Every structure is written in C-alpha cells, then in structure tokens.
C-alpha cells in the first residue's frame, strides 16, 4: 500500500503524464459509453449525408457521405481501438517475455536459436509484415490482434533477455538454486518481478503503436469489415478530403490524441518506476 502511494506521488509529479492518463481515461469512457449512447450499429445510415459538425444537434460531429453518424463511429471506434491495442500488446508482451526469459535464463544453444528467431522477425519491416499476415488470414479483429502481436514481440524479447542476463549472475539467483527452487519457479517468482518495470513501460508504448497499426491497416481497407474503426473512417473519407475535410480530421485528431496520451503515460510510468533514472 505504502509503495503504491509513493508510486502515485512520483507519477503525479509529471504533469504531462497526468494529462496523458486523463486522455486515456476519456477514451476508455468513450468506449464504455458507446453501446449506451449509440446502441445502434455505427454503420447505420441515420441522417442526411455530409452534415457538417454542429449543424444539427442530433449529430454533433456531423454525418459522412452515406449519412452515418460520425460521433457514433468515434465512440464505437474507441472500443475497437482499445481492445485491439490492449489485447495485441498482451499477446506481444507474453510472447516476447517467454522467448526472452527462456533464452536469457538457459543461454547456450537455446538462446542462440531463440536469438536467431528474434532476428528473423525483426529484420522484416513490421508494418508490411502485419499487412501481409492480415491479408493472408482475411481481416477480422482476431487476425489483426494476432498479426500485431506477432510482429511486435521481438523488442520485448530482447529487453527481457537483456534483463535476465544481468539478473542471472546476481547472487540471489544462486541462493534460490541453493534452496532447491526449480528453474520455472525462479524465472516466474524471482526474475520476472525484477524486470516488471521496463516491461510495463514498454507495454504502455506498445498499446499506442498497436492502435496506430490497426488504424493504418483499416485505412488501407484491411480493418475488420464488421466493426467501425477510426482508420476505416479516415480511409473512407479520403476521397472527400477537399469537400468534407472534417470526416478525415475528426478521427485523425482522435488517433493523434490517443497515441500521444499513451506515450505520455509510458513516459510517466518510466519516471515513476525508475526513480533512480531521473533524480529530481
């Protein structure tokens, strides 16, 4: 408890990080409010096409070329973006941590093999790789999460492997072996908590990257056709950029703010979890 309070205090010292947290909370609230405020599908054509924002109080953010409510799209898109961002990050972090921990702990040929595997994944440009995976597997929320998870784990693996290499030679690990702990137990209960801080920081930045990647995929027409996504909205409004710029600008700004907010949170976590890095 005491540790938690100290953590909150260190986090709050960084104003930008607090702003980031507030923005992320707003996006999360939007996602939660979507089914309540707009129970109908955001694909539904509900009004006159191409209404500008603030013209009709019923459609505060206007309507698109087919008369769909932009506000409904933004709110439903928030839930899609957050879901994909968080779940893909979990996949990526679990995969990367597993590979990095096993490689770093056992060393030898296991480490060599896993290291080469990591290199193979890292040499491929990650967006093109994700694009190819989604195209092959046919786009859906599941395949998009899978693709983003698969292309983003290598940096996590490298991070965890590096931490493990440093921790492995510490005396307390020898002491744990000395009392007969199994390898799996040492990895899970002794070493992973020691590198939780960098993993958490990486994860918060990864959520932002995943949201951006999903939007990019959707923009290129590789979003899940059944769910409304911010990227999809931008992609469909592209042709109307000159006549109805707000259809691109609104989801664009929302993506910008969300990604920026998550990065600020990551910064703040980094400062709060590693107080030694920035003594103030």
């Amino acid at each position, binding site marked *: 408890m005491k540790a938690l309070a100290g953590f909150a205090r260190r986090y709050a010292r960084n104003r930008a990080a607090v702003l980031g947290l507030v923005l992320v909370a707003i996006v999360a609230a939007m996602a939660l409010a979507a089914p309540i405020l707009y129970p109908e599908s955001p694909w539904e054509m509900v009004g006159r096409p191409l209404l500008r924002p603030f013209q009709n109080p019923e459609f505060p953010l206007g309507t698109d070329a087919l008369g769909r409510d932009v506000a409904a799209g933004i709110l439903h898109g928030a839930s899609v973006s957050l879901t994909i961002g968080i779940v893909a990050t979990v996949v990526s972090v679990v995969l990367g941590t597993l590979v990095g921990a096993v490689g770093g702990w056992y060393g030898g040929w296991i480490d060599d093999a896993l290291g080469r595997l990591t290199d193979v994944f890292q040499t491929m440009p990650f967006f093109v790789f994700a694009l190819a995976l989604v195209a092959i597997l046919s786009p859906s929320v599941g395949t998009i999460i899978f693709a983003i998870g698969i292309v983003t784990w290598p940096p996590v693996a490298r991070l965890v492997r590096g931490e493990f290499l440093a921790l492995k030679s510490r005396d307390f690990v020898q*002491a744990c*072996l000395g*009392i*007969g*702990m*199994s390898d799996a137990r040492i990895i899970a209960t002794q070493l992973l908590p020691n590198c*939780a801080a960098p993993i958490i920081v990486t994860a918060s930045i990864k959520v932002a990257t995943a949201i951006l990647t999903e939007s990019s995929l959707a923009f290129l027409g590789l979003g899940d056709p059944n769910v409304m996504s911010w990227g999809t909205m931008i992609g469909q409004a592209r042709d109307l950029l000159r006549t109805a710029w707000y259809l691109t600008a609104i989801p664009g700004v929302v993506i910008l703010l969300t990604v920026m907010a998550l990065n600020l949170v990551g910064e703040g976590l980094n400062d709060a979890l590693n107080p030694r890095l920035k003594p103030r």
Partner: protein
Amino acid sequence: MTAPLLAVEGLSVRFRSGGRMLPAVDGLDIAIAAGETVAVVGESGCGKSVTALAIMGLLPAPPDCAVAGRAALDGVDLLSLPPEGLRRLRGRAMAMVVQEPRTSLNPVFTVGDQIAEAVRVHTACSARAARARAVELLELVRIPDAARRLDDYPHRFSGGMRQRVMIAIAMACDPRLLIADEPTTALDVTIQAQILDLLGDLQARFGMALLLITHDLGVVARMARRVVVMYAGRKVEEAPLRPLFAAPRHPYTQGLMRASPHHAPAGGGRRLAEIPGVVPPLDALPLGCAFAPRCPVAFDRCRDERPAVLPAGDGRLAACFRAAGEAAPA
C-alpha cells in the same frame, strides 16, 4: 566408525579454459559425520568454493565443467543424481550460506516473502503457515522484533542482519548438512563473532553437520572439530583441530600458521611470516607436489613425484614426503 553423513571420495572438478580442461579440484576426499563441524581452509583459488558448489550440484553444466568422483549424502551419490532429484535435496537435506549477504537477497521482495518462499519450495503449506514459519525462523536467527521486520525489504537490513536472513532461509527445512562458504568474510569483525556463535548454536540445537569453508584460521579455531587444508585443488593435510594447531605436519599448514596473527608468538611488533611466492595457476601446476616451488623444505623427489595423502599418526593425514616419515635423501 559409522558411515558418515557426507562422504566425498575422489572428487575432481575440471573447468574448460581455452580448449583445455584445468583441474580446480583433484582427487579430494572429505567425510563429515552427522552433527560434526569440518572446516576447509586454504588460500583463494585452492578449490574450496568449487568443492561446495560440486556437492550442491551448482556447477556449470558440461562441457564447460567436468565433475568426477563420488559425493554421497546419506549413501545417495549426489554427483550421479539427475538434476530434478538433486534439486529436491537442495534446501531440504542440504543447504548453503554464501559469502555475500548484500546481494544474496532479491531486492524486490520483502524478507518475509523470501523466507516463506524457501519454506514453500519443499513443503506444501498455506501462505499463512509459511509466514508463521518465517517469523519462527527469523526469531531463530535472533532478529529482534521478528514479526514486524518480516515486511521490510532487504535494503533496510544491515549486512549482518542479511546474513542472518540467509541463514534463516538455509534453515527453512531443517537441513542435515549446512555448507557455509566464507559466511563471515564480508562482515565486520564484531558481527562475524555473532554470526559464528549463531551457526554454532543452531548446529548444536538441530544436530546438523556443518561444512565450513574459510581462509580465516581464527574462524577455524573457534568452530571446527576437524580441519581439511587444501592447496591447489588437493587436500594436503587433515587433522583434528587441536593437534593441527599444536603441530601442523605439512609445510603449507605450518606456513599458514606462521602467517596468522592468532598463532604467532606473543610479543608484538614482529612482522608476520609470509609464505613466499603465489599459488601456481591451474594451467601451470608443477609435476610433483604443487607446493614444492614455495616449500622451504622441498627436496628433489617433491619436484618429480606427487606425494599421496597418507596417515601421519594420531588419525591425521598429510600429503608430504617429509610428514609421512619417509627418509629424505641425505
């Protein structure tokens, strides 16, 4: 004599270095009865700690390291045991306390968590029971206000306190053999005495055998009943405590005694005698007795032939042509 608790026979450990296998420990025999304290002394790099790690099965895996011989705990050969079987014995039948208490505790967990974890590794018990046992163990190692200190992180403990915690962890499952590898080297002199007293008391109370590894003859004199002197990976002398201190047989032991302030003749101001030279590197061990180049009484045979460990009277053993009473050439 009944079968010893720990019987190390012909233990050899070799490490790979630049394509060669260098002997760190060579043909070592040590026997410890239940409840007995045996000290292993020697200079840095003579194979003391490697012996401890070999018994615990904590040496690197082949091909970087090759272990041969036998080390039987209660008749079970530790060296031929599969890793999983060995793991089950570590911490339960035998435990180890290492030199550096400052880094031997995981910094991100409370002391209580770490002791409780040690309990739960080998016994299926609830978190509450493990915690109760942790308090008991902290009291056992005489940490005042144990119940409250349980939730402190290691950085709030001093070096001596941490070593007590390490001992508590080692005692978690009532081991029959405790290996203490330089348990007091990193501590202040006053704390050293407290830790040694604690180890002695625990040993008397629980009847465990203690294998004490040290380079400090003062520690040996205080704790041990029998002493094994090692030099360059081999046993050079073994004797009960008093006779060894009264009349060391091996020239190396004699040199150690002369170099120790505890046993130098009183009268102050006299410079301590040192043993000339250094321990030979493992890749350049001499053909004959490893100590011959530094030995004041070496003769030709010492340089050509390796002396075996032979009885030298009164239940003592020594690996020296002179100690064994063999005639030196005129």
